[in-house]
């Protein structure tokens, strides 16, 4: 019977641990946000400071903007921090969220192989650059995942008056995954792609990719923060969530964002500057 007593011991141990896991309810809020803010390391830089000041732990679920908004709409997060203004405004209009505030911004860049088969290096017109990529029959990798970056890219195709999906699966590759996975694909295929500057600067697998196009006003990338409407979901930690939003937009929070740099380059610019 030794075997069963050992199994019994392990089972009871397992349940004891499970009970322990369910315990440990300190003050925390859940933040639904985008992969760009997490992958760049911004949260690792600013959240410990907020915790030290307020005693509130911020638990980040980092997914694409589309999915983050769905999580917030279901009431599974207290605060939403994303980067697609039209979706944010729709979210607030539908009363899913309240108190939208601008937090920070950076910009998107078009990156591509150093060999630059489409000859777009140094251009500042993003839409024109995309049409040159198409006419040169070069490969473009798209997020294809309903994220903020994907929506921005689709907007640029509209501006260029091109329907990219006619080349879907060939010269237009929709990865349907996060920014990192898409960059990995682009660097493996020596293809062009659109990326937010924060993720780009912190990305470690660039291989022969480099920034090709930047500085177009249409590449502006603002981030907004929204409190999930506590009137819709009674469990929303509105007070703690508001403290976080107030801190982010306060001088201390904005300074914390500005002080996050890789090398000497800032990844995000606080809105109040």
């Amino acid at each position, binding site marked *: 019977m030794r*075997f069963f007593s050992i199994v019994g011991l392990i089972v009871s141990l397992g349940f004891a641990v499970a009970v322990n896991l369910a315990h440990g309810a300190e003050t925390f809020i859940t933040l639904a946000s985008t992969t760009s803010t997490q992958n760049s390391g911004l949260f690792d830089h600013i959240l410990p400071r907020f915790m030290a000041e307020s005693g509130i732990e911020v*638990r980040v*679920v980092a997914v694409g903007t589309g999915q983050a908004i769905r999580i917030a709409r279901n*009431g599974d997060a207290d605060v939403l921090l994303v980067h697609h203004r039209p979706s944010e405004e729709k979210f607030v209009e539908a009363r899913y969220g309240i108190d939208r505030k601008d937090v920070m911004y950076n910009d998107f860049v078009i990156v591509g192989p150093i060999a630059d088969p489409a000859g777009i290096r140094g251009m500042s017109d993003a839409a024109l650059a995309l049409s040159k990529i198409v006419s040169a029959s070069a490969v473009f990798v798209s997020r294809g995942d309903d994220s903020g970056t994907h929506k921005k890219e689709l907007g640029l195709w509209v501006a260029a008056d091109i329907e990219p999906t006619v080349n879907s699966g060939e010269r237009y590759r929709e990865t349907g995954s996060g920014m*990192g996975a898409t960059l990995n694909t682009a660097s493996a295929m020596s293809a062009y792609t659109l990326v937010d500057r924060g993720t780009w600067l912190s990305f470690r*697998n660039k291989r022969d990719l480099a920034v090709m196009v930047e500085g177009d006003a249409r590449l502006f990338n603002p981030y907004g923060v929204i409190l999930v409407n506590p009137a819709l979901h009674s469990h929303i930690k509105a007070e703690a969530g508001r403290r976080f939003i107030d801190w982010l937009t306060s001088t201390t929070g904005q300074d914390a964002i500005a002080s996050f740099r890789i090398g000497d380059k800032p990844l995000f610019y606080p809105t109040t500057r």
Partner: protein
Amino acid sequence: MNDFSDAFIAAFSLLIQLDADLVEIVALSLTVSLTAVLSAAVIGMPLGAALAIGSFPGRRMLIIAINSLMGLPPVVVGLVVYLMLSRSGPLGVLGLLFTPTAMVIAQLILVMPIIAALTRQVVEVLWAEYEEQLRSLGATRWRALPTLLMDGRSQLLTALLAGFGRAIAEVGAVMIVGGNIDHATRVMTTSIALEVSKGDLALALGLGIMLVLIAVAVNGLSWLIGSPGQDRLLRSKRGGGYGRQQYPAARTR
């Protein structure tokens, strides 16, 4: 391609440094997966045994269902558990989403069919072999069950390990229901996915090597517990009753 050598260096330095974050991640991985496997065993083993020796309507259908569920895609399980546990879902009031408990539930659903199906297989074979003899000794189906389970314990351990292998290696379900939250629900596999998305392939592969080492350690440990050497020990201690030493006689008939 020096990603591989970089990966081994990364894995090695992870092992040497053994920083607190990594220990936390490894501990959570083991806790979640072991809890899931053991709870799945508590449900799956009796279920499998009942399917093996019981006779009730729908038994065959249930066997087919359990066997098919072994191939459940983790992402689908993750999604279903997410929808159930979401605040807008039927079990939302429990507030379990994005907690380790949610991850245990998802892995339990993935692992339970494997343990149940393999248990059924093991018990069915043993029952076919020893039914006559056990009956002649006056044991009913259900009275014979402990003996059958005891006799098949090393195969049952393999069933547990198969379940553990699925649980510890799985990323799709725990990513969705856990959310890969730092210091809360981040486990080995979701860390690896995160490092891949940061483009730090060497660190990702290094974490992968650590994951394999942990799996080896768990399997080695369980081999020690259920090693064949102990079978002999238990058999000689057990003596009479319907111990294994009597079975060859049954076979010769």
